[in-house]
């Protein structure tokens, strides 16, 4: 597969390490009342869709960016690649 890195352009997916569902960005915040059950849900349950999937890839053999790649799990087509940091910010994560 080829991942079109937002900073570096098209790169072979073999340069990357895969982590999983980009929902892993949405770590519950215990300081805002998140419970153990929330962490269980976060840590263990997955939509695992057959279709479009936002997922985390790390450019391990490259610039060390974490990316959010929107990829179709049926066709492997990639429709969007973003810096995970931007996605995290857009989802309200900060410090």
């Amino acid at each position, binding site marked *: 597969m080829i991942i079109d890195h937002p900073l570096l352009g098209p790169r072979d997916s073999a340069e990357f390490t895969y982590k*999983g*569902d980009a929902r892993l960005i949405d770590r519950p915040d215990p300081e805002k009342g998140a419970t153990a059950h929330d962490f269980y849900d976060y840590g263990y*349950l997955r939509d695992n869709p057959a279709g479009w999937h936002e997922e985390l890839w790390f450019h391990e053999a490259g610039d060390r960016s974490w990316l959010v790649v929107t*990829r179709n799990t049926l066709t492997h087509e990639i429709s969007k690649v973003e810096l995970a940091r931007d996605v995290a910010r857009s989802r309200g994560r900060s410090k």
Partner: protein
Amino acid sequence: MRFSGLRVIKEALTGHKGWTPAWRDPEPQAHYDIIIIGGGGHGLATAYYLAKEFKQKRIAVLEKGWIGGGNVGRNTTIIRSNYLLDGNEPFYEMSLKLWEGLEQDFNFNAMVSQRGILNLIHSDAQRDAFIRRGNAMRLNGVDAEMLTTAQIKERYPYLNTEDARFPIKGGLAQHRGGTVRHDAVAWGYARGADSRGVDIIQNCEVTGFKIENGKCLGVETSRGFIGATKVGCAVAGSSSRLMAHANMRLPIESHVLQAFVSEGLKPVMPGVVTFGAGHFYCSQSDKGGLVFGGDIDGYNTYAQRGNLPVVEDVCEGGMAIFPAFGRARLLRMWGGIMDMSMDGSPIIDKTHIDGLYFNGGWCYGGFKATPASGMCFAHLLARDAPHPNATAYRFDRFEKGLMIDEKGMGNQPNLH
């Protein structure tokens, strides 16, 4: 019809006119006591044991395509019970024991071949871990033996011990491990179940569950609604898609595992060998093909195909330990969708919905588990209580912190 050597001879002499279909092709009935979704190895085994061991009646297996078309028809055929952890070892040993008597039990030669499996050791830390595992097996009454490199060389004289990047420091052997003719497992169970009255319904895709007041009343299918008192799901890589119809999210991701077979060769591999410092394992089929595999591709997918980097990775591993295989040719490669769970171990449990049961999360280890999975799932469906050897395979183990993590990789499925 009972199969035997005499029967084969009789049919040969009378023009093979007497052979009958291995299973019927029935129309679905309006209601069953038990519906199993998924006509793969696990689903068919479940139906077989439900009928045979638990004397259940009015059972149907619903398969969206052709039976045996999932992972039971696309794996590397290995059976073994060389597990470490308490939650796993008795279950897999039960499975191996069932394999040992399976063909006589279901009267179909699945070519269960206990030719032995050997895990190569390449470092002291790996040896320590394998000794711990081998001891766990022995303490469970399971066979395990440490072999020296010299003993291994006797069986595999062409193993690269002279120029190995990661030296071979021995191996953990389970002599009762081996291989099975994988398609025959599906067919044997199907035939055995069918002859006991189970309706095996192919080309019948489940498109939804009918759930009222927290109880499952049946399934919507491509061939209409079929009612059921109990519904058991055994659909491996399709688990998340199926259970989404019941609004369930699972501790499972779907990944592709590629497998490979070479052209037919005269026998060179007496048993199964796994490389401990790379991703490669190999055996040789009775037909002569080297059957081998390695790691999963590592990204979520439902496509039954993988990509080139893993193909290369696997063949690099192969060449590292068997440089004589360089002149053998890879004939065919394919992919199967693995229901990779969050701790690498399976789930056989009731769901929170009455009458809806789940079997899945087998990762890439489902084939060897087929008989025990069928037996334990049948037990659960028939008796509403887990089989004693499958008590750990609960849904709630993740929330409670009772993971069964053989590899110690944590909640990242692609690392198991």
